[in-house]
């Protein structure tokens, strides 16, 4: 019984600690806004999606997830492939889209 309780508590805290806020990917071949429209459209159709940011200059796609919602990296990658592109790298990030944008702007200013 005690073990069960510990496992339950650990599971709750593990989920909270690693709940991903956003998915961040570098996308190969994404060079024009008109052509990348499919990425933006398909990502927004996903129930878990709160917001999408397509950054053409850095070939980057960020999807912010809704609270308590998840999207697997495999599903994310499939959507990018269905839009005609390849994913160079993809990862979960515990930041909101606004925070990622702010980081990105700051990095550019430093450069």
């Amino acid at each position, binding site marked *: 019984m005690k073990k069960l309780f510990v496992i339950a508590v650990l599971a709750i805290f593990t989920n909270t600690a690693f709940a991903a806020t956003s998915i961040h990917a570098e996308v*190969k071949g994404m060079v024009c806004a*008109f052509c*990348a429209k*499919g990425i*933006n459209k398909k990502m927004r159709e996903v129930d878990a999606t709160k917001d999408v940011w397509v*950054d053409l*200059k850095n*070939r980057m796609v960020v999807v912010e997830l809704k609270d308590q919602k998840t999207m697997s990296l495999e599903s994310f990658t499939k959507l990018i492939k269905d839009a*005609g592109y390849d994913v160079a790298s993809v990862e979960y990030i515990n930041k909101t889209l606004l925070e990622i944008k702010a980081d990105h702007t700051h990095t550019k200013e430093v450069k």
Partner: protein
Amino acid sequence: MLARLSLALLLLVTLPAQAAALMGFKDSAMFMSEFSRDRKELMLNYSPAVGHAFGVETMWMRGEKHTNLITNINYTGLIKRWNMPGGQANLWFMTGIGEVSGDSSGFSYSPGVQFDYETTRVYFLAKARMVRAPHIQYDTYSVQGGFSLYETSFEETQPWFVVEARTTDGMAMRNEITPALRLINQNYFLELGITNPWDSESRTPRLNLMLTF
């Protein structure tokens, strides 16, 4: 109001048959056309899977001897795509079969291939297409090159300067050079050009728009 409606209709029917992307994303539809003095083309296709699109097209063409309307069902396939960190290249195959009417009549077919390469600043395209029917041989070869002065974000409109050279067997205007200004946005692809601007006899405006749904 009438002028706006006319402009909207004109925009709707003048989509570029020569754009780099010959189809949209999976489950999308794309409408393309070309509208000039001796050639009017309309094409609508649907992409059920990545790299495959099926559609219909109609081509009105005024040749040296004949003027015809060709109506085809068509298929566009992506033979190979190269997605690179800073660019994309594609090799396409397209074909159409249907019938021709007008000064000639009968079965028509129009296979072709296209290669294109694009970065956020540079663009190149080469295309060859046969258009054949009884007494008709409008084979077309074209190259396009262009550049943009600066990169833009996904939300902004990017201007491009593009030049196309095209030659078509059997057409009234065989050789065409078209400098154009291209505006690319996430929602549209608009091109304004003048074919053979130095030649008063063959000088023709070109207006292209592309939309995906």
